[in-house]
C-alpha cells in the first residue's frame, strides 16, 4: 500500500510541476539553446564543430510581447519557420510594416501590414527573409532578452547593438529608396 501511495504522490507532483512549467514557459519566459551560426557575432561566436554541444549559448525568451505583438527594430525574435512550422528560428527584425527593403532577390519591397523582415547577424550563413520574403508577425513566438549560458557571456545584449542597428537601418532604407528610384527610372 505504501509504494502505491508513494508512486501516486510522485506522479501527482510531476504533473503539477509540468503544468506550472508549461504555463510559465508559454506565458512569461523560457530558456532555449541556440544552434547554428546564423546569429554569429551575437550568439555562438566561436563555433567549433567538435565542441558544439558544450559551447552552445542559452538565451532567455520572454513571451509577454505576444499579448500586443508590438516589436521594435532590432529585436531578436524566435519564430517558427514559414517552410516548416515545427522548426524554430532565431533572427533579428530589421524592418517593420511600411518600411522599404532592398535585396538581391526581390529588388525593393515595402513590408506589408502585419509582417516583418528578419535577418541573421551572420549574413553569409543565414537563411532568412532574403530568401523567403517578409514573414507574418503571427509566427513570432517570443523575444530574446538575455544570454544566460556560458557564464562569461551573461548579459542583456540589446543596448550594445542598438547603435550598430541604427546604422544598419539607415543603410537598408537608403538602399531601398535608391532601388525604388532606379526601378521607376527604368520604367
Amino acid at each position: 500500500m505504501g509504494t502505491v501511495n508513494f508512486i501516486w504522490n510522485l506522479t501527482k507532483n510531476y504533473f503539477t510541476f509540468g503544468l506550472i512549467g508549461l504555463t510559465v514557459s508559454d506565458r512569461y519566459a523560457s530558456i532555449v539553446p541556440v544552434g547554428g551560426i546564423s546569429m554569429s557575432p551575437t550568439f555562438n561566436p566561436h563555433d567549433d564543430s567538435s565542441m558544439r554541444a558544450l559551447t552552445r549559448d542559452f538565451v532567455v525568451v520572454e513571451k509577454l510581447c505576444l499579448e500586443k505583438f508590438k516589436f521594435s527594430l532590432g529585436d531578436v525574435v524566435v519564430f517558427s519557420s514559414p517552410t516548416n512550422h515545427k522548426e524554430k528560428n532565431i533572427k533579428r527584425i530589421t524592418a517593420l510594416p511600411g518600411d522599404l527593403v532592398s535585396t538581391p532577390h526581390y529588388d525593393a519591397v515595402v513590408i506589408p501590414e502585419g509582417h516583418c523582415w528578419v535577418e541573421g547577424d551572420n549574413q553569409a550563413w543565414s537563411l532568412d527573409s532574403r530568401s523567403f520574403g517578409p514573414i507574418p508577425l503571427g509566427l513570432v513566438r517570443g523575444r530574446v532578452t538575455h544570454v544566460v549560458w556560458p557564464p562569461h557571456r551573461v548579459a542583456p545584449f540589446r543596448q550594445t547593438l542598438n547603435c550598430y542597428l541604427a546604422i544598419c537601418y539607415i543603410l537598408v532604407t537608403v538602399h531601398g529608396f535608391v532601388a525604388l528610384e532606379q526601378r521607376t527610372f527604368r520604367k
Partner: protein
Amino acid sequence: MRLFQYLSQWKSKAKDGIQQSLLIAKFLCLLHVTNNYVFSPVMVYGPSMLPTLNLTGDVLLVEHLSPLLDKLGPGDVILVRSPDNPRKTVTKRIIGMEGDTVTFLADPSRSDRYISLKVPKGHVWIQGDNIFASKDSRQLGPIPCGLILGKVLYRVWPPEGFGSL
C-alpha cells in the same frame, strides 16, 4: 506569552493562505494548458463563412491537437491567426495542403477567370465559404502552417445549430 500565541496563530493562518493560493495557481495553470493544447471555446462572426457559420456570431469548440500532430486535411474548418493583423484570428476552410494544386476564381463578382497554382512547402491554401465576401489566400497568398491555431470541431451556440462542422 501572549505575543507568542499571536505569532503561532498568524503562522497557521499564513500557511493556510499559501496553500489556498497554490491551489488556485494550479487550477489556473490547468486551465491555461487545456485552453492552449486541448480545446477552447471561440466566438466568431462575420460574413466570410456564411452558409456554414452565421453572420451574427457563433460559439465554436476548437481543438488544438491536430495542428500539433499534423492531422489536418482539405475540407477542415480551421482557426488561423490573421497574417495581416496578429491580434486577430479568422476561421476559414482548408482548400489545399502543401504540394497540392489549387484552382480558384480570381475575382468572382466580375469575371470567370480561373487561376491555378501550387501550394509551396509548409503552407496551406485557405478560403472562406462565401467567396464574394472573404479575405483569404486569394488576396494574401498561401498561409504558413505556423499560423494555424486549431481545428473547429463543434458549434456550441446557438443551440439549434449544435453539431459537428
